[in-house]
């Protein structure tokens, strides 16, 4: 796990890149403030320690000074608050289920169930196109024919919005992909939606970010963004349908109308 | 701060950091040493030397009897009262506990009498080519005890119109757990591929009282007593033999009634062994 600082590795999602920009902006503001205040404090301490004769100067306060150093920081903070509103809204508040903004139901890729200590993944049958969130909810509620199952390895779209639903089978976990700047707690009993668009291909570490037991440290997975997700899922489905005789990828079971012997 | 306190603080900080840095050696990250031991060491304790051929065979016969009154066997399923598979289990006759069957004259049935290892120098007759049959009727195994030749095929059959399974627990051979479908008349083949040193249970998981005992030997010199406790072993090598006498209820949970019963078989003659055992030998 060598992601330590956003500057070392660029985020792989556009929103992640915006989060990194915000990070640098706030770091810059805070650094300037830090240098300024610490510099002033150090100067005053140094100057004061050298002064052996003069008595201390007692002040009755300065109204102007109080006003200045309330207004200025308040202004800076207000600026930061307003500047990041948009990113926060896109990341957290965007109400996707009933409006035109947000991921389309057709962006649904998988249901990820966090359990001690692995990630169990279920994709809908390759070729399924969801058009309403009601359909998604019905699909999440129980297993369906043609579902493809996987564990610890999640395939997502490249350059296209990905929507996944996060569940927990037992205790609280958190779905954390640092390279995508995505983190969401998994709550038992809830199906929580997570959406992101990956614009760099590659494999990204998935770790658990909510202490969930003695195996929390090894709850690792991998998220891979692929160009042709359909094809990849079809491959997985063919392997899942393997009957020991028919090579995977040839005649799918159930498609034939021939009479059974 | 005083210099003493200062020294103390520095020492503590140094000690703690050193302790944390050195940490725990060993454990998961230690590299274990590996020593090599060649395989193929001979385990046979009997040295080499020429083996004298034993020629001639004889017969051994006798009886195994119980001293005292045997308890009445428990009824496991009274006729017609089975909870499941009522059309077969206990349908015609009640199912009775077979673990200690004492016949007329207090003879004990289903006692295994056999030689463990074939005596060196004894020519071993070839294995029979025909299969042994292990059947079941009314949710009871027939026969209750059986001696077969290892590598002989045992055909598991069923006269019951209900599914069973046969689960074996041999000591050295490959185990078997196969379903036997209703009215299986062709027989499901089962082979014990190794010589067994003690008899072992064969059960049906579906009907928990169903149990039988098998023994697979790599020679033909083993048998079980009949209902009246009598037995006969033919073609035994004419020499001094060490016999084992085993019963499923010996000591309460199955074991040897006699582990080293020495008998000399006269060439072209017959020897007799009559043994009696107490109720206490069966944990009763």
């Amino acid at each position, binding site marked *: 796990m060598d992601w330590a600082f956003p500057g070392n590795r660029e985020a792989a999602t556009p929103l992640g890149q915006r989060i990194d920009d915000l990070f640098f902006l706030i770091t810059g503001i805070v650094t300037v403030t830090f240098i300024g205040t610490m510099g002033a404090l150090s100067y005053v301490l140094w100057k004061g320690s050298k002064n052996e004769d003069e008595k201390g100067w007692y002040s009755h306060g300065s109204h102007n000074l109080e006003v200045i150093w309330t207004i200025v920081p308040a202004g800076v903070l207000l600026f930061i608050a307003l500047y990041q509103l948009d990113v926060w809204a896109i990341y957290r508040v965007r109400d996707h289920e009933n409006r035109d903004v947000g991921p389309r139901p057709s962006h649904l890729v998988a249901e990820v169930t966090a359990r001690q200590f692995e990630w169990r993944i279920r994709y809908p049958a390759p070729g399924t196109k969801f058009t309403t969130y009601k359909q998604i909810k019905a699909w999440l509620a129980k*297993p369906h024919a043609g579902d493809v199952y996987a564990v610890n390895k999640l395939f997502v779209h490249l350059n296209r919005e990905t929507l996944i639903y996060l569940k927990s089978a037992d205790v609280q976990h958190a779905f954390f992909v640092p390279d995508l700047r995505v983190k969401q707690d998994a709550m038992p009993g809830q199906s929580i939606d997570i959406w992101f668009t990956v614009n760099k291909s590659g494999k990204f570490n998935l770790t658990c970010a909510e202490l969930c037991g003695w195996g929390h440290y090894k709850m*690792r997975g991998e998220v891979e963004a692929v160009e042709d997700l359909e094809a990849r899922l079809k491959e997985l489905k063919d392997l899942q349908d393997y*009957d020991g005789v028919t090579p995977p990828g040839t005649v799918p079971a159930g498609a034939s109308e021939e009479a059974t012997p | 701060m005083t210099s003493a306190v200062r020294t103390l603080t520095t020492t503590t900080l140094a000690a703690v950091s050193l302790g944390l840095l050195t940490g725990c050696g060993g454990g*998961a990250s230690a590299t274990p*040493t590996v020593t090599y031991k060649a*395989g193929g060491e001979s385990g046979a304790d009997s040295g080499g030397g020429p083996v004298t051929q034993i020629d001639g065979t004889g017969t051994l016969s006798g009886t195994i009897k119980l001293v005292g009154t045997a308890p009445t066997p428990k009824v496991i399923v009274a006729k017609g009262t089975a909870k499941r598979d009522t059309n077969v289990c206990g349908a015609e006759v009640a199912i009775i506990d077979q673990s200690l069957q004492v016949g007329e004259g207090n003879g004990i049935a289903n006692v295994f009498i056999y030689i463990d290892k074939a005596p060196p120098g004894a020519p071993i007759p070839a294995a029979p080519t025909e299969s042994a049959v292990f059947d079941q009727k009314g949710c009871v195994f027939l026969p209750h005890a059986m001696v077969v030749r290892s590598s002989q095929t045992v055909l598991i059959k069923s006269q019951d*119109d209900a599914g069973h399974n046969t689960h074996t627990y041999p000591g050295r051979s490959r185990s078997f757990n196969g379903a036997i479908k209703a009215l299986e008349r062709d027989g499901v083949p089962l082979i014990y591929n190794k010589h067994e040193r003690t008899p072992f249970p064969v059960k049906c998981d579906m009907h928990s009282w169903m149990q039988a005992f098998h023994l697979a030997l790599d020679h033909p010199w083993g048998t079980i007593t009949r209902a009246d406790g009598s037995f006969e072993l033919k073609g035994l090598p004419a020499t001094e033999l060490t016999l084992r006498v085993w019963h499923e209820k010996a000591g309460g949970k199955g074991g040897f009634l006699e582990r080293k019963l020495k008998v000399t078989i006269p060439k072209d003659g017959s020897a007799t062994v009559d043994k009696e055992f107490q109720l206490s030998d069966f944990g009763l």
Partner: protein
Amino acid sequence: MTTRHSILRLLALLPLVVGCADYQAEFVNDERVAALETTSSVAATNLTNSLNTHFGTPNALVAWGALPIEFGEISGTVLSATGNSLRVSLEGDPPTALNHVAVVLETKTPQNRMASSYDADTRILTLTEQEAAPAVTPGTPLRLIGHKLQAGRRLYMQHCMHCHGVTGDGNGPTARYIRNHRFNPLPRDYRRGLFKFTSTKNGFYASRDDLRRTVRQGLAGTYMPSFLLIDPDELDAIVEFVRFLAMRGEIERRLLTHLAPLMPTDDGDPPKDLQSLEKELAVDTFNEALADAASLVAENWTSADAPENLVIPTTARLPDDEKSRLKGRNLFISTKINCAKCHGEGGRGNGGFLKDIQKNPETQQNYPTPGLRDAWHKMIQPRNLTSGIYRGGRRPLDVFRRVTAGIKATPMAGFATVPETDRWHIVNYVLSIPIDGAFFDEHGHQYHGGDDSHADHDHPHDHEADKPADKPADKPADKPADKPADKPADKPETTQPKSAKDKK
């Protein structure tokens, strides 16, 4: 400086010893060895000594050539030797760290030495000191044995030991937290050499591929997690170490069976003829029993990897349509093979046989409570087929293998004599239960159970068997007005073939 300061100083050094005691992992003996110790210490000592000689301890392992384990062997030749420093040429791509592996010098009588370190750049192999070791002549072939066993042990301690235990007895420190659930399977005790989810025939052991699959994919629905991202070499090393522990446990068990007549009776008394039995079993025939145990164990594990012992269907899976599933259902509930007696009429794992009290095959006594037991004498439940959790894999091939060969160490028998087509019908039925339901109504349509057999059954159709007069009455009366399922808008479009029940 006062004494108080000196004492405080010494106390300050106390943190140095915190956590620095070297954790000595030790193999744990089987529970019966303690009982054996009370009657025959000779037998117990011989047993533990022979295990020590042939398997070692976790920090000083022994690679025993009689066992079919890949310890990691590198061959090479000695080019030159100065004392304990040998300049060698090794074949293949040796790993960089070869500390403490066994070195076998193939002189006329092979010498066993140990490597202290190996420098890949200078190709100098330094051996550890050994008293009176003869000088090594150039040109001697040598073998370095054990790097894979070391890697396996290290990885096992890191990833597996906390549940499966140092000895592989399923009793590691975290195993106790799994005990709370009534039927949650405990970590596997390897010492019987039995593993449940295999691809081999009835009676055969688990192959290396089976063990690899279990580690990589985990076991769904249990506490065995998936180690999907593990490096393939590390995976192989772990599997070899698991086999090592399993073989050690099996040999211990077999030796204990050999020494069983020496165990105390139920009253705690020593057995009769203890002296002569002890001499016979623990001294005279002991080595023979050990060699026999080793060869049996080796044969069992080797035969498990043989390709002819895999369960491979000869016919392709039959099309997964409603007709096949109905046939599977009828086979499932028929008393001819009695699946439903364990798995239940609805496949929930609550069949009638669970009410019977089973007998322990080792002691011939009844278990105290009703229910099925596995080979480790723990309560076990037949799989709840409605859950959609398949521990051995969810491919049709995996379910076929379950049905054909059963599950080792459990009451699940192998139905190999049921014709293959029938087994495929059962597979089709079983795989459809979580999605389409376990029951079939009088028209042969699948549903999930309950009173309204026509729930989820909302399409107009003709029943050929029905008389025309019955048809109008059939539909309106059967369909409740507020059925939420199956409305066209709720079903996503799919290019997949529709599930069987939608077929008209």
